[in-house]
């Protein structure tokens, strides 16, 4: 593992591959901290926010959002990996593949043809991959989008040469801590909280809406037990399985080691 503090003010890149740009937007949504962030970080490459861009300089730290969906994405990622001492995946697409990686369940070529006609087949498109399927990733901040506080906390830790705090509690645990009544038990709703990585303070269930699983699987997620619990509350297994696949684990990662 590498750490980010080699100089007083580390050089930083914030780079987007294919995605909704939501994680870069979360960075810009740190409105009250933004000018502090630029004081502490020497942001050299952040195309979404600045046209003054150095896309060649070495970087102490790079945050990369989005999934790899084209050769262009792949080249961009390989290049920033070469430039950066420390690479942090931000957002569920970068960490797990996210919604675009649902293409694993379908015939991608047929989908390209459906959307763009035969002309679409000449587009630069590849099956969706998470960053770690392409390059080594030092740290991961998951979430769709990432939580602002987790991003700021990760920056603070990295500035001090420490790894960002890792999380291994499911959304369910945070929901209990907030004393929310369980949506599965009391209302029979399909809630992905038991198998989804926490850190969002149970954002959805505390607002009466079941967890959609958008932060990806928690370390040690016991999927069979969750499916059995859902079934016991009247939710058919195939319905639950389809829901869990939306932000499901990478096919290459065994269930017992799903932690990013």
């Amino acid at each position, binding site marked *: 593992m590498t750490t980010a503090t080699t100089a007083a003010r580390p050089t930083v890149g914030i780079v*987007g591959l*294919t995605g*909704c*740009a*939501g994680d870069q*937007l*979360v960075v*810009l*949504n740190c*409105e009250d901290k*933004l*000018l502090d962030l*630029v004081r502490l970080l020497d*942001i050299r490459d*952040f*195309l*979404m*926010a*600045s*046209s*003054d*861009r150095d896309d060649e300089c070495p970087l102490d730290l790079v945050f990369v959002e989005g*999934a790899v*969906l*084209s050769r*262009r*994405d792949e080249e961009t990622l390989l290049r920033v990996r070469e430039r950066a001492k420390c690479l942090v995946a931000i957002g569920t697409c970068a960490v797990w593949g*996210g*919604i*675009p990686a*649902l*293409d694993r369940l*379908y015939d*991608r070529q*047929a*989908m*390209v043809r*459906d*959307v*763009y*006609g035969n*002309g*679409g087949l*000449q*587009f630069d*498109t*590849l099956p*969706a991959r998470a960053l770690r399927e392409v390059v080594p990733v030092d740290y991961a901040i998951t979430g*769709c*989008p990432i939580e602002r506080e987790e991003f700021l906390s990760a920056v603070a830790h990295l500035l001090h040469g420490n790894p960002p705090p890792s999380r291994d509690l499911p959304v369910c645990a945070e929901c209990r801590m907030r004393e929310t009544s369980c949506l599965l038990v009391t209302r029979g709703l399909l809630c992905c909280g038991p198998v989804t990585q926490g850190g969002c303070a149970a*954002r*959805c269930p505390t*607002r*009466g*809406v079941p967890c*959609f699983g*958008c932060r990806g699987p928690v370390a040690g997620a016991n999927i069979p037990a969750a499916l059995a619990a859902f079934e016991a509350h009247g939710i058919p297994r195939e*319905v639950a399985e*389809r829901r869990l696949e*939306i932000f499901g684990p990478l096919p290459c990662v065994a269930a017992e080691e799903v932690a990013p």
Partner: protein
Amino acid sequence: MTRIVIDHLARVEGHGGVSVELGDGGVESVHFDVIEGARLLEGIVRGRPYDEVAPITSRICAICSAAHTIASLTATEQAFGVVPSARTERLRDLMLRGENIESHALHVFLLALPDYFGAPSAIALATEHREVVDLALRLKQLGNAIQEVVAGRAIHPVTAVVGGFGSWPTQNDLLALREGLLQGREDVAAAVDLMASLPPVDIGRSPSAYAALRMTGFYGYASGHEILVESSGRTVSVPVTAYRSITREQTVPHSHAKHSRWNGTPFMVGAIARLAVNGDHLPAGGARVAQRLGLTGESDDPQDNTRAQVVELAVDVDRALELVEHLLAEGDCVEAPVPVTPRAGTGTGAIEAPRGLLIHSYRYDERGLVEEADVVTPTALNAASVEHRLRRAVEQVSDRDAARIRRRAEMLVRAYDPCISCAVHVLDARRAV
């Protein structure tokens, strides 16, 4: 032949570029390149249950995720004959005002304004014009605070569901929003002064056709049933259900966004298009700002889109304040979503997203599983117009200075406030018949 390529546009949302070819006779070609990878969400929603569709399609774009969510929910509700309550409509209105305030503040100040000051970014602007950046960030934060309170998250809403809301704002949250909105009114006034002080620029000015929803009451962005297209002084009404007649899309090789035309002419959508077709319905506060910024007659200037966004900042802060006062007067009254019984059917939800007309259209089977999905996004609708005016902007540079061409091309594209994540996600799951 000279080729000028902007490989990757800065200060826009998503990945796009511009390429220009200059020949002996003049400008040979101008392309607005959408180079974002294709996420193919159409195949992904097909066969999935109705309650997964809004959370998945919201991920098309972060900045417009509230608009995508509500267009999606509206399409689904129509397909199932679900009619949300008037209270739900008002809360959705507030959610969209929040998104519009955030998105416009981001575009006007953080993306577009630095060009006028010759600065590379708003962050660089902060050294000399700290007050401008503080103002921008306060307005942006206000828009996000509204979405946090109403939608449960500033990006990718969580509480808005088919038939209503999973939870309602608390009185304490609303009181905090009221404070923020009162400050917001002052900030908007300062934003108008700033905007009025900017020098005019002539980049790609040329007459344009405009398309936007007919906006009834309060200049509202949701619940549109009719699209108005204004072209050469004539306005034509198109029912939302017939939207495909204005979006005859062509796939073009250089772009993952399809191109749309109206009777063969490119048209523009967005804040300036809304003003062009709904100017008569502008509330008094907004009308005063429009007057001040010179947006009263026909517009041929793409930069007017940024000015029209400032008009909407004024309208939205006023309207959001009214809605918050209304919710406060109602007191805490939680309302469960309207129950949903899936049935076979189609529904089309049209909405004015921050960047313009956005349409979600779905066909469901009797179990409530998606059979077909079609999403038409504002930036895809604007792509042909962007290219049309890019050509004009390039032709205006008689000395063919490459640096100048680049600068002007970037500024022109930015005026459209493109959202390239959106543009590429033209969901179109209709099978060839």
